[in-house]
């Protein structure tokens, strides 16, 4: 169940080739240093859509490629290795997963456009410093046939280029209550929506989005109003598995570059990779990355199979992959020595992205807590 099918292996290979050519660290640097407004290359994203990436979680009836979560995970691992930027996480994973619970008309309207890379639908969930969906304060008050949204979201990935937002809102109860939450689909050009891009250390897209009395029709609700809890968990877990897969890709690439450096760099008359203390640290790290990778495949497979343990493994994978990526990138800097501290080398780019991806949708501490809760202790 954890081994890859031939189709999956092919998908991963072709993604690796494509990203190496069109969405590598070189391209990330170009976007960063040019202070690019979009934050990714739209042409490349369209090409990725043509290859089926954007529709990976969209069923074929809506024009998707339906590669599933294992496929999405393989793509994310490649994104991690190349530090590719695209609206994959926001739109192809989070947006698409959320929309699958929307009204049929909304699905017909948005899913094909997501799959074609024509529309970007971003998830607006966090409000404070910590990922804590139950703490949602952004309110959606019913007023006749509409709901009125008031509040602010932060760290909305691709928020400043989104065509629409899936917004987590409170329709009853108080911040802190797990119940009383709803999801609404809000087009970015609705009056009252304002967006400000945030300057993140990973040079990726994120935005602060303010909803100042935004009126949306009640039928834009995704799932039951006041009872969107299970859908929210499901959407977030899809994103967590994708991020975990990306983190393993980051960890593996940072680690492999480090091992290569250890073999090449000489000091005190020897390749530094021959020093046993470094060898043991590298060996431990290798083991941790292997373990992390297994959790990601397992989580994705369970989810594709509709197995209820998928939620547990989403947290296991997010925690373990976050940990592995943090250690791998920290060690990459340390083992590269002074040169690893320079912006000229890519190591720092991996370090920064690992930290952001590790924090998004809950860091390893939050997910350790969730694992305890889900297991029941």
């Amino acid at each position: 169940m954890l081994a890859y099918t031939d189709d999956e292996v092919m998908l991963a290979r072709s993604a690796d080739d494509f990203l190496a050519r069109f969405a590598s660290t070189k391209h990330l640097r170009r976007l960063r240093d040019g202070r690019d407004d979009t934050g990714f290359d739209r042409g490349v994203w369209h090409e990725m859509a043509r290859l089926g990436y954007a529709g990976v979680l969209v069923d074929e009836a809506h024009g998707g490629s339906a590669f599933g979560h294992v496929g999405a995970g393989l793509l994310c691992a490649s994104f991690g290795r190349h530090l590719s930027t695209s609206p994959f996480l926001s739109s192809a994973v989070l947006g698409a997963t959320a929309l699958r619970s929307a009204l049929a008309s909304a699905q017909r309207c948005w899913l094909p456009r997501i799959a074609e890379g024509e529309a970007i639908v971003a998830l607006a969930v966090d409000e404070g410093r910590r990922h804590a969906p139950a703490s949602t304060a952004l309110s959606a008050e019913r007023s006749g046939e509409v709901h009125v949204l008031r509040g602010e979201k932060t760290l909305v990935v691709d928020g400043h280029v989104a065509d629409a937002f899936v917004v987590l809102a409170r329709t009853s109860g108080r911040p802190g209550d797990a119940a009383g939450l709803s999801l609404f689909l809000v087009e970015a050009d609705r009056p009252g929506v304002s967006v400000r891009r945030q300057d993140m250390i990973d040079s990726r897209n994120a935005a602060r989005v303010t909803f100042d009395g935004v009126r949306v029709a009640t039928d834009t609700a995704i799932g039951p109003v006041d009872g969107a809890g299970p859908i929210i968990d499901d959407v977030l877990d899809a994103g967590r598995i994708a991020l975990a897969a990306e983190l393993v890709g980051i960890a593996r690439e940072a680690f492999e570059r480090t091992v290569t450096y250890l073999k090449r760099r000489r000091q005190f008359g020897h390749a530094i990779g021959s020093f046993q203390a470094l060898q043991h640290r590298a060996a431990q790290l290798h083991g941790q990355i292997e373990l992390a990778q297994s959790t990601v495949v397992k989580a994705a497979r369970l989810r594709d199979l509709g197995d209820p343990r998928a939620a547990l493994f989403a947290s296991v994978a997010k925690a373990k992959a976050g940990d592995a990526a943090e250690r791998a990138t920290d060690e990459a800097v340390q083992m590269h020595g002074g040169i690893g501290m320079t912006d000229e080398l890519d190591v720092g780019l991996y370090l920064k992205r690992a930290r952001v991806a590790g924090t998004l949708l809950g860091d390893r501490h939050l997910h350790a807590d969730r694992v305890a809760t889900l297991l029941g202790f």
Partner: protein
Amino acid sequence: MTEFADDPQTFRAQIRAWLERHCPPEMRSPAHGEDDICWGGRRWTFRSDAQRQWLNAAAAEGLTVPGWPRAYGGAGMSSAQVQVFDDEMERIGARSPLESFGIWMLGPALLKFGTDEQKRRYLPPIARGEIRWCQGYSEPDAGSDLVALRTRAEDRGDRYVVNGQKIWTSYADQADWIFCLVRTDATAPKHRGLSFVVFDMHTPGVTTRPIKLISGKSPFCETFFENVEVPKANLIGAENGGWTVAKYLLTQEREMIAGRARGLHDGRPLWQVVQELAGDAKGRIVDPILRDRVARAEIDALALTATIERYVEDAAHGHEIGDRSSILKYCNAELNQRRQTLILEASGADGLRWDFVRSDGGEVAPAWLRAKANSIEGGTAEVMLNIVAKRLLDLPAE
């Protein structure tokens, strides 16, 4: 013997039905201590009727060694079928009907390196639990470094005469036969003069002495050989080719220790054990720091289990586990040490008493102390890391 179906679903149903009929209810709970394990052998005394019935029923079907060929006492199952069998055993919490170094280690080595005669002679008694084996590898000055072995076997025509000392021979005082590495060419460099031989522990000149560990009594012994005569027919593999057999066997051992984690702990999830010791009425572990550490250990346990699953699947697809077993061995040892430490801490002052046992009968302090050896026995943690660095990562020697 039952004819098992090729079709996976029918096969699973057959196994399920067979287990339902033959596995005694008393054998459907995890083994807690030595007394719950059936090791077999000439001198074996069954702890219960159920234990005897279970061994006999399993042996009759070749299910003590389901993957071995039927000709040698096994059930001839494919690795996928063995997996199903293991799953079904686990589903009903069945104990293994027979544990033995013969099954885990000598068997695979014989299947690979033994002559047909050797296989016919040694394998079926292992499968039936009639002959209990021990292994003689380590010596006082050769632990991780087997190249330094000094036990020598002198050539006397049709037999060898063995002199020397082994250490860490588990259950040597209860075993019937021993397989061991001896030096047959004292002049050959390093591991080139080693041979792999087997002999009866009743042979004159063999004596054993149990070793007391920091955790108390132990299955380990020192074993002494004084002019022990061993027929040359008892040589497995080529003379001076013992290193090849031994290396293969060490990998088997690591896979066994790492992969199936047999014997390392009692199989209950850590969190349940800690919950009983330190949980509130609702089952929440009260101390948030302890709860967090248990959660992290569970994450790593699930990650390790998934990795074993992945590697085993890989192996079924033709990509052998090979040196990757060192990763499993290393992580498994570390994880069981964390497990036992967390259980000890959850037990607080009680855990510091020799006589304290958990509500489920599990020992606390002895298990914690015993676990310290996990990263030493069967290849130290350091040796495992060396293997990963050198063979998997291809890092250079100095």
